[in-house]
């Protein structure tokens, strides 16, 4: 499976992202190559996860676990197989039908296994190229694992290339800016504020042309 994943990224994803899209990555050296770490980008497009995963060297790729909604990515057999084996997602239950179980337990387990979690705090893709409200999951994770850094990542352009609800990919260059790691700030709210601050600062580094 690791080989299959590596081949998929080498032969399909990377050419697509490098040639059709084209990335401008800033501060690539800040990308964590070893777990435990949480990488927290904004979310505009299905291309987000593929683009981010294409940044890691193939040898590290299997240690990166995108956290994704079970009800969406496991909705049929083929997609479930692809999501679990090639994208190596950590499925989470968005509906929380079962209140006794701890929804963060599998994520903490992954951090313990030295894996890198890829979490989109906006929850879903939202309106293209706009930041939605952040959910507090990442702060609750570092509350339990204070040594784990949150790496904020701001992306722009992929929501133009493939927005929600559209299947036609239109090429646009995309920007990826990786920020400084953020650690547990003593409270969930303070941690989220630090993250929000960092994301805004990153987005201000870009010159984003109007897209009305």
């Amino acid at each position: 499976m690791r080989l299959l994943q590596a081949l998929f990224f080498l032969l399909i994803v990377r050419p697509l992202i490098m040639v059709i899209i084209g990335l401008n990555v800033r501060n690539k050296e800040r990308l964590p190559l070893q777990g435990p770490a949480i990488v927290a980008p904004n979310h505009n497009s299905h291309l987000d996860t593929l683009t981010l995963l294409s940044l890691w060297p193939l040898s590290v790729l299997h240690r990166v676990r995108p956290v994704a909604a079970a009800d969406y990515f496991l909705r049929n057999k083929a997609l479930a197989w692809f999501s679990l084996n090639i994208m190596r997602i950590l499925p989470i239950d968005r509906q929380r039908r079962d209140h006794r179980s701890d929804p963060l337990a599998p994520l903490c387990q992954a951090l313990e296994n030295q894996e890198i979690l890829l979490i989109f705090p906006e929850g879903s893709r939202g309106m293209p190229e706009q930041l939605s409200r952040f959910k507090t999951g990442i702060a609750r994770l570092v509350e339990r694992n204070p040594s784990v850094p949150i790496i904020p990542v701001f992306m722009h352009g992929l929501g133009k290339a493939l927005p929600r609800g559209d299947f036609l990919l239109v090429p646009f260059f995309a920007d990826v800016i990786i920020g400084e790691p953020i650690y547990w700030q003593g409270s969930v709210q303070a941690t989220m504020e630090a993250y929000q601050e960092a994301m805004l600062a990153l987005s201000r580094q870009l010159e984003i042309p109007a897209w009305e």
Partner: protein
Amino acid sequence: MNGADLSDLAVATGIVMGILALTTVIYGALLQFRPNQNLPKIGSRIRFLWGMALFYLLALLYSPKILLFYVAFIAFLGLKEYLSITPTRRADRRILFWAYLSIPIQFFLIGMDWQRLFTLFVPVHVFLVLPVLMVIVGETRGFLRAWSMLGWGILTTVFSLGYLGYLAVLRPDTHGNGHGLGLFLFLVSLAQLNYAAQYFFGKRFRHPRLSLKVTQTRNWASLVGSILVSIPVAWLVAPWMTPFTAGQAVLSGVLIAVGAFIGYLILSAIKADLQLKDRSTMTPGSGGVMNRIDAFVYTAPLFFYIVTQWFG
């Protein structure tokens, strides 16, 4: 005068590659040993020219059509960059997809050597087809601005580079003179030479000035100086690359000098208008591709027109 044949062209190619290699070595050495000197940032330009050189060699060895793929790819990067840094309308997302399709169509027409259709296609696509698609989408707010920006984006990238590609596959004329790759080599070498000369003369002589809003490094001295360099070089190399007479070589030299100058200024003005930061260190996607193609935006169509006028 019977123009250059393939062996002449091979010699010329060797010399041009030698100059490129020498430039690369000198520039690398300067970066290494004089890092704090205010060097022009041409690293990415040199890499771009090596890419072109590689495809040019393949074209020389196998088929000129190989170069079409490279030039089409540069056109794609250019249009993609343009659309990424200019404001576009959400409603036009799919229209942009049709704009991109102009690239394979245009280069297919070049590959088939359908010159008339090639000349017609971009104007028809930009001024007749795209606006129809846009009214079907139906968003009127910003319609004229969006259409104009898209059209001129296609003209500065797909249209102009189409001529550069077409030069490479031009066939020898009825007298067996000339070789498209020779014309391509002539244009690219002279355009880059003039780019360098204009930088040099602009640094050396500060006057007479042009608008500083457009450029801080070029002035009227750049233009005059580069024409004076371009004429003898064009006259010297033309017999090795082209079927030109001495007069045609000199005229081409002047035309390429003027064209490279105008192309540089116009793309500088565009970049200034878009307020792109730090115009010296541009990556592809934020003005970098424009920097590479500025020398061809004017020179390629004009040079193609006079060549086909003389030898059509």
